């Protein structure tokens, strides 16, 4: 569709939608600095809640668990998913269409279904629920997302540069490391970033596959939120939101530069 200046009402409407998207988050951040504990009215500025947060051992433990799960599942899913993307983009093999459609399963099915399936599976095979089962589950839903994202980025890949590399005497391995991988790296990185944030964000599947002692940050936030509205939750949310914003902005800028 061409760029034709959008009508005024459309621009106003869109502005309002953006306001609707960002307003709750803004409120969340502002009220993390509120002195009032029940957090109803603005009373005064304080950093007290951040201090409370940094001394909350449950939160610290949950953060450690979350980051560990996210790092491991991202790493594994990125490697496996990128391989799948290369396979689907460049090769034809038996079971191609079937594999392709399996990749869409976690995109479409309700998370609760995947959560209880994994729970039933782990129960049947006597897996001890905990960090390991959470990580295994995160890898499972992350592989397809990585594969789909990387594959979409492989679309415009110019195969002739690989051929040129081989003609100049490089073998497959050298060609892959020196030519292919650097070229597809932006795609791989955005796949990895998606996997990382999906893992950080996941509540439902983690909820079903977690055991005692493996509380993650989303599980922790859930129980805090259920209990009461306190500025400590706001402080935690603020840190989380700002961290994600910074990571995304940096990666966006990096991608712009490369493009």
């Amino acid at each position, binding site marked *: *569709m061409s760029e034709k200046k959008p009508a005024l009402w459309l621009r106003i*409407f869109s502005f309002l939608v*953006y306001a609707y998207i960002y307003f709750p988050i803004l409120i969340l951040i502002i009220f993390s600095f509120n002195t009032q504990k029940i957090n109803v009215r603005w009373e005064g500025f304080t950093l007290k809640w951040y201090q409370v947060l940094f001394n909350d051992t449950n939160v610290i433990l949950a953060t450690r668990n979350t980051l560990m799960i996210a790092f491991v599942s991202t790493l594994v899913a990125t490697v496996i998913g990128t391989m799948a993307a290369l396979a689907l983009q*460049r090769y034809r*093999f038996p079971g191609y269409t079937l594999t392709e459609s399996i990749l869409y399963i976690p995109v*479409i099915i*309700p*998370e609760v279904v995947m959560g209880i399936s994994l729970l*039933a599976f782990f129960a049947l095979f006597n897996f001890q629920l905990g960090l390991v089962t959470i990580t295994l589950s995160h890898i499972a839903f992350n592989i*397809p997302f990585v594969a789909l994202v990387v594959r979409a980025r492989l679309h415009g890949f110019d195969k002739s540069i690989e051929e040129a590399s081989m003609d100049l005497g490089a073998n497959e391995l050298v060609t892959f490391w020196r030519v292919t991988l650097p070229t597809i790296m932006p795609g791989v990185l955005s796949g990895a970033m998606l996997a990382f944030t999906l893992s950080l964000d996941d509540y439902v599947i983690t909820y079903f596959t977690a055991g005692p002692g493996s509380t993650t940050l989303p599980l922790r936030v859930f129980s805090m939120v259920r209990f009461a509205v306190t500025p400590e939750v706001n402080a935690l949310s603020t840190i989380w939101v700002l961290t994600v914003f910074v990571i995304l902005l940096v990666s966006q800028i990096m991608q712009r530069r490369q493009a």
Partner: protein
Amino acid sequence: MVADATQIKRKFSLLRLFRESTVAQGMALISPTTIYLLLFMILPMILVAVLSFMARGTYGNVIYSFNFQNYTRLVDPIYLRILLYSMGVGLATMLFTVLIGYPLAYFIARSPVRQRSLYLFLILLPFWTNFIIRIYAWIMILRTEGLLNTFLLNLGLIKIPLDILYTPTAVLIGMVYEFLPFMVLPLYTSLEKIENAQLEAAADLGARPWRAFLRITLPLSIPGMIAGSILVFIPAMGMFVVPDLMGGAKTVLVGNVIRNQFLTSRDWPFGAAGSVFLLILTLVFTLYYTRKAGFGEELLV
């Protein structure tokens, strides 16, 4: 020595075979994915399907006796009502995300190319943060002593605070907020693809902008709308976190029922039957979509 030589020779010929066979290379690259997903996604789902034909023992254990009871229980009036109610919530979420998302997607598709990715990025940005945090933000706004009530009371628009939180309305507000991007992105993808020539042709033939919109833009954006609807409707029915946090005990969706069967009532076979129902629904919708629109990239974003 002789054995070594033949071994080396065989190794080389295998390697050569592998180098020359693209099928083998493709299989080697895809097999980790296939194996992993078969083990940790397909097998668990098959397990649940099998489980749905079993029965619950007295202590919440699973008894291996083949029966259809769990499925007949699904159409029991209590559960049928929940089912219909969930569909209602799913449809309402879908409707509101279309009403809000369509103009927005249209606006982005019409904006200068260089700004489009920024606008899309701005839609996605908050959704990369945790979704429980986003629900929490709405709880702060909607609760009895929350910001909305404070604001309306101060303005004198209302005399007593509105009870919005812990009602179906609150659940709907939360759902629409959560699922909006899943509607906007596929809609944008299909709107963006529309050729300008078609719209110009319509204008040349004397069609008013509105008529051109109704006859060209809208029909061509239907695939995006269907893709968005699948991505919103089915996950909304299975959602149990928003009803838990924003609906109090009043709003129970299919997702809540499944969760409860697995974690509180410990009737796994019945919970499994509920999951199979959601799975079949997903399958039917997706097949319908792929038949109608072809497997579009709309579902991907």
